[in-house]
């Protein structure tokens, strides 16, 4: 608000002197948070909601890994009930993680918080729409969770003798997997099915995604300050812009598909169900037309975060800025043309398969070149191995493995063998979880001082990152081998020969859990007891580092100066306090080579 006097110390806020007025204490009371129009507070509210969804999805990940520790039923002595329970577990895990965690994690939390500040703006273009998209997310999320959890509760409390269990009103649960494939989803469970309610939940969540995307596109177009040309836009914003394009263009297709599914279930119009004249493969086309681009909704913002982390902690201008910026948009657009590679075994024509395979490989190139650009940025840098940088380096490893195993699946003859096996499970966890999660965690550590004005523990940050990294690889690397050996996905039980892979994987999942809780405790500890953070703890030159930590309500006390976002040579570190200050006019270092 303009009534606050500009704090002239802000641009060079020294360490230990937190600003008196900032967005966290700007107004008080619960309602000042729940109804806030401040993008920073909305970002933090998203953080609480999305991390809660992550916790729920994570608990069910561990439960399903425990069920798979042994081929025999674990959670119920009656095998039929144990298998039903497992089918509900993996559906809940997948749906919650995809729709409520990975899709919103980076854009809605980090994007909301950072985007306007990086841009030098006071807020997003439509603050009220931003608040609306948050509450739409909460509404859709609760809807979905209620239905899914209702099914788990019913089976878990089912009593053989009375023949019933605890049934929440309408909480019929869902066992279709997050993909809702027809005709299973249009026939399963009869009237006792959560398909209608769950699709409504996903439909509502989709609107939250569309509104956020629209808002970001409008903000980036309209609110750039003087001097912030497109090619001075930080790469994270290029990534968010590309992501927003996909959100706005692809999510409506999912909404239409889900509406058609409802129309078929309720009105019995034959669209996807062959028993009333529909075509089940049509559903797969519609679904993947959204869901493949959605993979890029999950991973593009992550790539953007990594570009920021690599350049800042290498103290070196990002290598190939233009290529990285344009490749984000290119990946977003090409991502719309490859959906058919999910359907190589569905019976679509050989020619269609060949075309989709070829286009799929075309997406590999910009992704690979991004990795080379990051490695080239490290070359000759002055590398500070702080926690966010550890995450960025781990990310490169996971993204390389996830990306290269995409070659096995994009290739026609090998995909026939690998399709719907654990090889696919491992591949998409490396890309969607390994890469997106590590980028999200790295981004959280990177902007943590800016968000809360406090520092976290560097030592525990690094330990947590390494434990999570080791656990993740333990969990998923063996799944490549299990999959190559033929282990099908979505199996509640399996032939004995696969036991060893499942046991290693389950142990890995427990290690990941330990790592993730260490990260959470490190954040909570930093929040409560952390040392005050300087305005610029890393020496980054993007605009968010040129305001105080935490920023004032209006983000900047004075209009920031826009320059090359990756020219960091004017920033100097005070070794004693860890704060970086800008020395205007400092000469660029002489060529070191």
């Amino acid at each position, binding site marked *: 608000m303009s009534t606050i006097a500009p704090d002239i110390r802000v641009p060079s806020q020294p360490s230990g002197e937190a600003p008196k007025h900032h967005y966290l204490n700007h107004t008080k009371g619960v309602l000042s948070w729940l109804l806030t129009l401040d993008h920073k507070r909305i970002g933090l509210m998203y953080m609480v909601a999305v991390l809660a969804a992550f916790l729920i999805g994570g608990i069910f990940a561990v439960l399903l890994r425990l069920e798979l520790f042994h081929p025999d039923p674990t959670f119920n002595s009656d095998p039929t009930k144990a298998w039903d329970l497992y*089918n509900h577990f993996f559906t809940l895990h997948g749906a919650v993680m995809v729709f409520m965690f990975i899709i919103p994690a980076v854009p809605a939390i980090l994007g909301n918080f950072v985007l306007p500040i990086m841009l030098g703006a006071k807020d997003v273009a439509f603050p009220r729409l931003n608040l609306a998209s948050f509450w739409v997310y909460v509404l859709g999320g609760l809807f979905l969770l209620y239905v899914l959890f209702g099914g788990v509760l019913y089976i878990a409390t089912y009593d053989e003798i009375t023949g019933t269990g605890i049934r929440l009103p309408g909480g019929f649960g869902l*066992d*279709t997997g997050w993909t809702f494939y027809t*005709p*299973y989803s249009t*026939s*399963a*469970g009869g009237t006792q099915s959560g398909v209608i309610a769950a699709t409504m939940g996903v439909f509502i969540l989709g609107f939250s995604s569309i509104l956020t995307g629209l808002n970001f596109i409008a903000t980036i177009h309209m609110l750039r300050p003087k001097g912030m040309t497109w090619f001075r836009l930080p790469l994270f914003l290029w990534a968010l812009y590309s992501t927003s394009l996909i959100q706005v263009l692809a999510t409506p297709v999912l909404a239409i598909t889900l509406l058609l599914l409802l129309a078929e279930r309720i009105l019995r119009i034959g669209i996807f169900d062959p*028993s009333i004249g*529909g*075509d*089940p493969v049509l559903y797969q086309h519609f679904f993947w037309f959204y869901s493949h681009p959605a993979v890029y909704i999950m991973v593009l913002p992550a790539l953007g975060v990594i570009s920021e982390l690599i350049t800042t902690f*290498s*103290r*070196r*201008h990002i*290598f190939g800025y233009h290529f990285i910026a344009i490749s984000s948009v290119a990946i977003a657009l090409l991502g719309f043309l490859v959906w058919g590679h999910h359907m190589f*075994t569905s*019976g679509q024509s050989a020619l269609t398969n060949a075309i989709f395979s070829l286009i799929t*490989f075309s997406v*590999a*190139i910009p992704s690979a*070149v991004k990795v*080379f650009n990051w*490695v*080239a940025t*490290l*070359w*000759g*840098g002055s*590398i500070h*191995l702080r926690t966010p940088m550890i995450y960025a*380096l781990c990310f*490169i*490893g996971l993204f*390389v493995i996830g990306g*290269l195993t995409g*070659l096995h699946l994009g*290739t*026609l*003859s*090998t995909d*026939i*063998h690998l399709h*719907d096996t654990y090889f696919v499970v491992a591949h998409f966890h490396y890309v969607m979880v390994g890469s997106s999660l590590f980028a999200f965690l790295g981004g959280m550590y990177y902007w943590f001082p800016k968000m809360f004005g406090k520092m976290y523990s560097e030592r525990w940050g690094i330990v947590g990152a390494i434990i999570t990294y080791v656990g993740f690889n333990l969990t998923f690397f063996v799944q490549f081998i299990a999959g190559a*050996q*033929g282990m*099908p*996905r*979505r199996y*509640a*039980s399996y*032939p004995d*020969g696969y*036991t060893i892979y499942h046991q290693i994987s389950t142990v890995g999942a427990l290690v990941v859990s330990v790592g993730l809780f260490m990260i959470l405790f490190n954040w909570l500890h930093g929040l409560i007891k952390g040392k005050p953070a300087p305005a610029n703890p890393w020496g980054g030159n993007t605009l968010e580092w040129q305001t105080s930590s935490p920023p004032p309500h209006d983000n900047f006390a004075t209009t920031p100066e826009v320059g090359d976002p*990756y*020219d960091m040579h004017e920033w100097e570190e005070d070794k004693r306090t860890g704060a970086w200050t800008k020395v205007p006019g400092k000469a660029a270092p*002489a*060529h*070191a080579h």
Partner: protein
Amino acid sequence: MLSPHQLLAASHQGFFMPKQASSIAPHVDWLMWFINAVSIFFTVLIFGLVIYFAIRYRASRNPVPAPAGHNNMLEAVWTIIPSIIVLVIFFFGFRGYMEMSVQPVAAHQVRVIGFKWGWTFEYRHPVDGTPIKLDRLILPEGEPVQFIMESTDVIHSLFIPSMRMKKDVVPGRFNKFWVQPTRANEVNPYLLPTDEEKAAAWAAAYDVYCTEYCGTKHSKMLTKALVLPPDQYRAALIIEGNIFEKDGQPLPLEIVGETLYTRRGCNQCHSIDGKSGIGPTWKDLFGAQRQFTDGTSAVADENYIKESILYPGRKIVAPYGNVMASYLGQLNDREIGALIEYMKSVSAKHQTLGGPQSNAD
């Protein structure tokens, strides 16, 4: 408890991929290893560079970073070389896929019917051409076999890992694929005398999985594929072709019914030991009073059972769901009669006078 090594051997797992048992498998595996080699090369290269740079250019050793980098030559090289590599991979994948897609003109034909939760494989009798329906696959070594597949309910997917072959089984359309098995199983169960030995020989046959999620018992929709030399394949089909006789002697109908009970997948949902499954148990079902979801009831007699096999949705016993697919056109009257006799044999309420059992009393 078997050691992991023994378990691997039992399920035909080889090193990294299952043992090869079809003409296409060597091609697929060769390409897998080619892509593995490319992947390992780039993984080692990038991991190596990242670790080397993180150490060599750490801030304490290299306090002054190099200026902004740009190198057109380097960028062109690292775009063009991966492009060529992926085009090569695409080409070999496409060529292998074409081999999988184009089947030889002459092939054995197996009709596949997928249902929740089992498989029916329909063969032609080698002598008289009548249909033979099995729940397991028998395949001739060295001869092409075409699968013509349909589903009676939801989407399933037939996957034979050792043959590197998989295709979705989609309701409302026929999906097809073909394989040429190349490695006969070592033991032919049809040449063995005892049931235990037969079962062990079948257990050693190739695994067949359902790989499209289809509900509660998706992970139990498993069967086996037995590969035999062509003459033994033919002999096995002739043996299987006549479920009403054994060694030229007619079998009692309840024994025939028991064969159908497992072979046609009834056992997936209906137990005979009184345990409740996806559907009601058959133990003591015949002659019992049945309570239906619409409030009516009836005594389970021959007509009721026949109706429930052919039109399963008409009368649903509480608290079960309407899950079963119709067997209309799948079972003939003689087979339904045999199934009814089998149900009688596991029902205490029904006692036939004059049968072998009453003679023994």
